[in-house]
């Protein structure tokens, strides 16, 4: 369902290089310091625009060179040798070299946010020459390059660490202009960029907590485009209007209805299967996103290398009832915690109706997100059913962690993931993950509902916006505005 990508090079002849692109976004950065503050909002705006890493993901999710022009991997999978791009300087003038790579990657253990454990395999970095850095691992990790392409792999100068919260100093196509808390972030074109210069002189990122307000702003010219537009009910009217271009891409996000397997009744596989079959995903998708997005049958998204579709546990209320009867469960009452986000509430109410139809009573408990939900549901596991949008890429591995909130403890899955993470080739890795995935789907620890769409609505004349959102940055260098 990914729409055709305009691609960074497709800038139109009439484009105005002095223009300002105003982009409406939903998630508000609480700070600029992604090393201490969680949430995708910060790196969404900065990575790929202000900060760059050694590698990046392309629109298909494949790792591509960026500040490293090339790399080799030792046979034991423990040493990644990167050849660095020459002539790259930071916005403050600091030259980029292997020392920077060393200081940036070796500082990871000090991060308190954004899960630095995913690059926990890195033992140290050897500076071979100014243009060659060897990243040495303590154990093989087939995912290393993928994680290096995320926010964890960005290059920073040691001097800028102190001011990470208020300024951003990277090597990217945009310099950081200003950030008015919760309102607007301004990025300016970096005219000294090492690569192709950005298509607009300035990018304003306007934050809208409310989806309809964002749509109104687009209609009244307050913004030029919306990225990850959430006013799903209005998308059709934008599509019908020639003044706007709408693309529907994909994200890494999985909206999942999780079942707490440690709950008495839910520890019974038949009950979990019954719940899975009771859910009408068409209705869920209609209610939550007006039908945009991709229904899922398993825990991975189409852009994952191990994506597969499954026909187990598809919508079948009759067999759901039968399974419940078989398990001897009747009058089941479950506590359903719901983040106070529109999508979650919509999903929850449809799920509640669906469950009621097979004789399960779900009591909704709306919890403030993130504060309350994170504490009660995620941390303390005080829930039976919950629904949440997992925006982190490759979240599948969490099914290998028995302490994670869904309390899914399956030895087979854990072994498979261990094998996957130490696999030396991508193929081995993919095979191991697929094996794990099959078990997970069979065990039904959750109901994977849909892959959140990445809807971009732009005024006609705005081109080059990324179609898909891969969970890292929103690269805006290729965006152009024509009169």
């Amino acid at each position, binding site marked *: 369902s990914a729409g055709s990508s305009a691609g960074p090079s497709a800038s139109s002849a009439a484009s105005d290089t002095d223009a300002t692109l105003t982009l409406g976004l939903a998630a508000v950065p609480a700070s600029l310091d992604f090393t201490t503050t969680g949430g995708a909002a910060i790196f969404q705006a900065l990575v790929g625009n202000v900060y760059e890493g050694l590698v990046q993901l392309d629109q298909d999710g494949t790792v591509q060179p960026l500040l490293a022009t090339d790399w080799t991997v030792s046979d034991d999978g423990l040493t990644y040798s990167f050849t660095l791009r020459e002539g790259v300087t930071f916005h403050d003038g600091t030259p980029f070299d292997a020392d920077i790579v060393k200081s940036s990657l070796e500082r990871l253990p000090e991060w308190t946010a954004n899960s630095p454990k995913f690059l926990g395999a890195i033992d140290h970095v050897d500076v071979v020459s100014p243009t060659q850095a060897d990243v040495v691992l303590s154990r093989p990790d087939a995912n290393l390059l993928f994680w290096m392409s995320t926010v964890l792999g960005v290059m920073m100068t040691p001097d800028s660490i102190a001011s990470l919260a208020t300024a951003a100093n990277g090597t990217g196509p945009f310099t950081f202009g200003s950030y008015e808390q919760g309102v607007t972030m301004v990025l300016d074109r970096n005219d000294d960029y090492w690569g192709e210069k950005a298509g607009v002189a300035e990018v304003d990122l306007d934050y809208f907590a409310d989806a309809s307000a964002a749509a109104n702003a687009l209609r009244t010219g307050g913004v030029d485009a919306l990225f990850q537009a959430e006013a799903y009910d209005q998308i059709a*009217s934008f599509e019908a209007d020639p003044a706007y271009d709408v693309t529907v891409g994909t994200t890494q996000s999985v909206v999942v209805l999780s079942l707490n397997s440690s709950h008495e009744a839910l520890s019974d596989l038949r009950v979990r299967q019954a719940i899975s079959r009771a859910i009408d995903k068409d209705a869920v998708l*209609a209610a939550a996103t007006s039908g945009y997005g991709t229904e899922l049958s398993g825990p991975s998204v189409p852009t994952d290398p191990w994506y597969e579709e499954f026909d187990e546990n598809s919508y079948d209320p009759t067999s759901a009832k039968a399974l419940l009867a078989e398990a001897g469960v009747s009058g089941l009452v479950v506590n359903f915690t719901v983040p*106070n986000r529109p999508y979650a*509430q919509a999903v929850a109410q*449809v799920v509640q109706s669906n469950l009621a139809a097979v004789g399960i009573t779900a009591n909704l408990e709306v919890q403030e997100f993130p504060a309350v939900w994170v504490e009660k549901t995620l941390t303390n596991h005080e829930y039976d059913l919950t629904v949440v949008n997992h925006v982190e890429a490759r979240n599948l591995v969490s099914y290998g962690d028995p302490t994670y909130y869904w309390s899914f403890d399956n030895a087979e899955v854990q072994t498979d993931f261990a094998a996957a993470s130490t696999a030396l080739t991508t193929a081995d890795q993919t095979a191991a993950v697929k094996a794990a995935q099959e078990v997970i789907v069979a065990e039904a620890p959750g109901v994977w509902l849909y892959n959140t769409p990445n809807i971009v609505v732009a005024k006609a004349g705005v081109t080059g916006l990324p179609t898909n959102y891969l969970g890292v940055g929103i690269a805006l260098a290729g965006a152009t505005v024509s009169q």
Partner: protein
Amino acid sequence: MTATPDLAPAARPARPSRRTLGSPLIVGACLVGFVVLVALVSLVWTPMDPVATDAVNRLQPPSSEHWFGTDGLGRDIASQTMAGARVPLLVGAVAVTLSFLLGVPYGILAAMTDRGTGRWLMRWNDIVQAFPPLLLAIILAAVFGGGTATAMVALGVGAAPGVARIVRSGTRQVLSREYALAARAAGRGPLYTAVRHVLPNIRGVLIVQASVGFAIAVLAEAALSFLGLGTPAPTPSWGRMLQESQAFLYVQPLVILWPGLAVAITVFGFNLLGDGLRDRYDPRMEVSR
């Protein structure tokens, strides 16, 4: 018996005939009565199950099946609107009761100890009143999670200082009357005076305040729900209906009409009732601070 004009009941001035559009009291009472009736009926009957979703038939225009159409989850708006009356009325009732339970004794106490402690009680009241109810509601929602209970408590507590102030001024008026002095001369204590003299005589002001407080609570509940701090799903509530339906304002504006109208009618009713009662009990409009 001889005619004794000097002992005739005091001539009471005839009420000036009102040439306004109907009596506010009656119109207000009818509207409020209607809303309460709808809320009561919804306990036993609604056209459809107000919480049953039918996402395939979402955002339908009004039809013979769905009188008011369906909402974003395909629920029947007519049923939702009916059942949605319960929460605002409950919030209003509890908030007003709470504000009275806190404010009335406090105000009476402050008035009775006017020259001593009362002054300090009122200073404290001023400080508490510096915390706007909505602020309290937002903070309480952060502490205890948003919800009907938090909204009721926040609105009740937030309104209490205002009630205390009004009660205090009413009580002071009563206490300045000679019958309050006469009660003391009769050897009666402050509790007796509070119960037998003060309360009955400030009843009018209290009734007016209650109906206005109700209107304010209904509006505030809607505002809190709009901010996502009010009644959580799936309990039907006008406030949440408004909040959910603003997403459809462009697509199906009718969706927002019904809860909006319901809120407006209710608030209108309570305000009219308050005005009517004020005309009856208290010719001067209390300026609450």
